[in-house]
């Protein structure tokens, strides 16, 4: 299959790649660009571990074609801190990341990048959500370790922190 040169804007940085038209964004992020913070599992948009933000919307990158991502702003977990403005200095965490650490919301951690980005997309539009709304927003992200409780608590706590800060 003929390869196509594309330009992707990921975490506010410009990346060039040469990809087949059927390559997924997930595969290009992980294999071509080494951004393995975005995780791989079901490859069928069932589990949510590959969630990234495209123009602020949470998408399953395993079913999102890389060529379609051209011209759009892509945010991966590596670009979240401090507020989606490029790679973070060591030790700087986004309020969502900080809340996940403090609430014990992380166990194996494999679902966490996708979980945090789904939460980010939702909170950006719904700064003061109810618990039920958070649970609805995260329903596309499977977690097998935590039972979701501490994740939901972390998102609700982060919502409060983000609503009270100017950088969110």
């Amino acid at each position: 299959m003929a390869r196509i040169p594309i330009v992707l804007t990921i975490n506010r940085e410009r990346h060039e790649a040469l990809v087949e038209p059927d390559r997924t964004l997930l595969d290009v992020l992980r294999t071509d660009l080494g951004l393995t913070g975005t995780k791989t599992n079901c490859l069928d948009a069932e589990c949510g571990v590959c969630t990234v933000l495209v123009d602020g919307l949470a998408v399953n990158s395993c079913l999102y074609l890389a060529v379609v991502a051209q011209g759009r702003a892509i945010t991966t977990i590596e670009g979240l801190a401090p507020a989606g403005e490029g790679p973070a200095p060591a030790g700087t965490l986004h309020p969502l990341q900080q809340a996940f650490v403090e609430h014990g919301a992380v166990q194996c951690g494999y679902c966490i990048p996708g979980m945090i980005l789904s939460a980010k997309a939702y909170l950006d539009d719904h700064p003061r959500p109810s618990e039920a709304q958070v649970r609805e927003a995260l329903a596309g992200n499977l977690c097998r370790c935590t039972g979701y409780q501490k994740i939901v608590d972390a998102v609700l706590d982060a919502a409060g922190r983000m609503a009270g800060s100017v950088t969110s």
Partner: protein
Amino acid sequence: MSAAPRVVGHSLPRLDAPGKVTGSAVYAADFALPGMLYGKVFRSAEPHARLARLDTSRAAGLPGVRAVISASDVPDVRYGAAVKDEPVFASDVVRYVGQPVAAVAAVTLEAAEAALAAIEAVYEPLPPVLDLAAALAPGAPLIHPEWRSYTANPILQRDGNVCNRARIVVGDVERGWVEADRVFEHRFTTAMVHQGYTEPRAAVAAWDSSGQVTVWSNTQLPFDVQATLADILAIAPSKIRVIVPGVGGGFGGKLRIGVEHFAALLARKSGRPVKVLTTSEEELTAAYPRQGTVIELKTGVTREGRLTARQGRIYFDTGAFAGSGPGVASVATLVLAGPYRTPNLHLEGYAVYTNKTNCGSYRAPSGPQANFAVESQMDIIADALGIDPLELRLRNIVHEGDEGPTGQVLTAVGLEECLRRAAAAIGWRDRRPEPGRGKGLACGWWTTTGGSSGVYVKINPDGTVALNTGAVEIGTAALTGAAQVLAESLGVDLADITVVSGDTFATPFDFGAQGSRTAFAVGNACRAAAAELQRKLFALAAVQLGVSEEALALRDKHVVGPSGRVSLADLARQSQQAGGGMIAHGTFIAPGTAYDTKRVEGHVYPAFHSPSFHAHAVDLTVDEATGEVTIHKYVVAQDVGFALNPTYIEGQIEGGVAQGLGQTLSEEIVYRDGRVLNANLTDYKMPTSLDVPRIESILVEHPGGVGPFGAKGVGEPPNVEPPAAVANAIAAAGGGRITSLPITAEKIVLASRREAG
């Protein structure tokens, strides 16, 4: 230690959290090497057949394909935990849909997949054995006609399709039936379920010019994988380095060798590094799920509700190879006894071959199935006798100093407190608050698995501490717990500790992340290392401070004497200059648990070490029309001995219950005619954030005598009781007595129609 603990007992954030929330933590599935090939496994399409022909020549000639291997390319060995019955690739006979037949490596995943499609296999079907009844029927076809020739643990009682029959006999059940006023007999069934870890099994293998292979894997047991690879590759373990970068969940599904051997064999053949990563379809058709079971339970009881005898048989559908079945069947008999005083017991666990995927270990192996039967029947008995289910349990539960089923003496028994507190928290007095709504409870006991652990602990010249352990962090925060024990023992902060783990060349041996043992055993090894470091530090410091070693203490990152102190950093620097560094080797092996050997046969797990006790209670509503179950509240009271880190113990409870609710209400690997019908994550229905209720954790602390600060194993127990607790609540709510897992809405509706006549 006299002062209040500074580090243990506190809900401190886990050490690996920052890497996991920023995406910098590297898991095995993320691992890559330059020039790496992608490996794929060609799997049997038949449940039971003679492999008449296998032609890989066309696949081998495709562009980008660098290696194709099948049985004729690999050593003719069989491997396995209890029975060495499994070949790397099927050669003459395939025994389940999904069994590996060949493997390929290619420069891209797409090229590897194209090669799989070009492999031609011709099968001559044999009669398949598709369930327990068929496997146990007189004259049933043997899955392994050559079973007698296999190397196996000599304790096992094997016979044809039965790869172990474990038994506990206590007293005389015939006498118990005579003493009983009522005898209850029930049959329960449970479905095959998958651990559901979010990171697929993964391995990258690379050989060097000296004939050494390095395998980066997400196994829970790097040393077990090293030993199995030595068998399969026919090379010495010292040539095999297994490194575990990070593990995205295991729950027992990543104990035994997964895809490491395919990566290593393909890498040897191709001369290039090879990565193998499983798909969801492979996970649900060819992994190590929890065995489906059939359970027959007969219990005698007096009018007052005193248990007189129990006879139980639990049959595990362990699939085409023994896997963990023989051990799981053994453990099951201890669960079938329940945490109850029962004078007469006759309990058997059978591991049975069928033409399905090889089953393994899944968080508290056998626990949820056997407990579902025991605790469902306790409620049936309570209802029949007109005794409150809580009261019936309180009349029979074990207490301090009682005997377990095999004669072990039980200590630190917090069960009564667990039951009373769980019942109080759920509002037990009002058990049927409104039509369609009911409350249920269930209790149980579980083990803290033994096995040895070693750690190296080094004090760095800046006064921080390096913990080097062969254990693996699979997500439970067990190694953070162990680090808390180490920090407490050395008088430093948790943040001062860095952990290096899971590398068969660079870390000391550890029995691995299994059986709720990691924080317990590694924590104790840390205590031993800290004691050794203390001796070395005090010897150095005593000279400098001019006092005797007896006058010294470890506090606030210093060795402190009556009138002066010296920092750990200074002492470590001095040791580096003159003594080769401040380092200690700490080890731990759990002491054996005494039991009566005459009570058991075929039993590879005859006692529960440092047992934990627990009770679950649930409040739910059943929709009479649709059978839908809505859980309002779920409470767990668990005797954890001592809570090393309460937040992460709650995390174990919340996650274990969520997983248990999946097994209870929605999860099942559905086989028809030997084929899995739902090998994807849409049709294999794991709970989402909308399905799991809030869970209240009550941490009960009856300190044990062995674990660090009295801690007991905590990871597996929360998975044991959810099926029974929910089944009992559904019955209380008027949804009928469902004796088959999962308890789907369909089963509830059908049961209520039957009861309505």
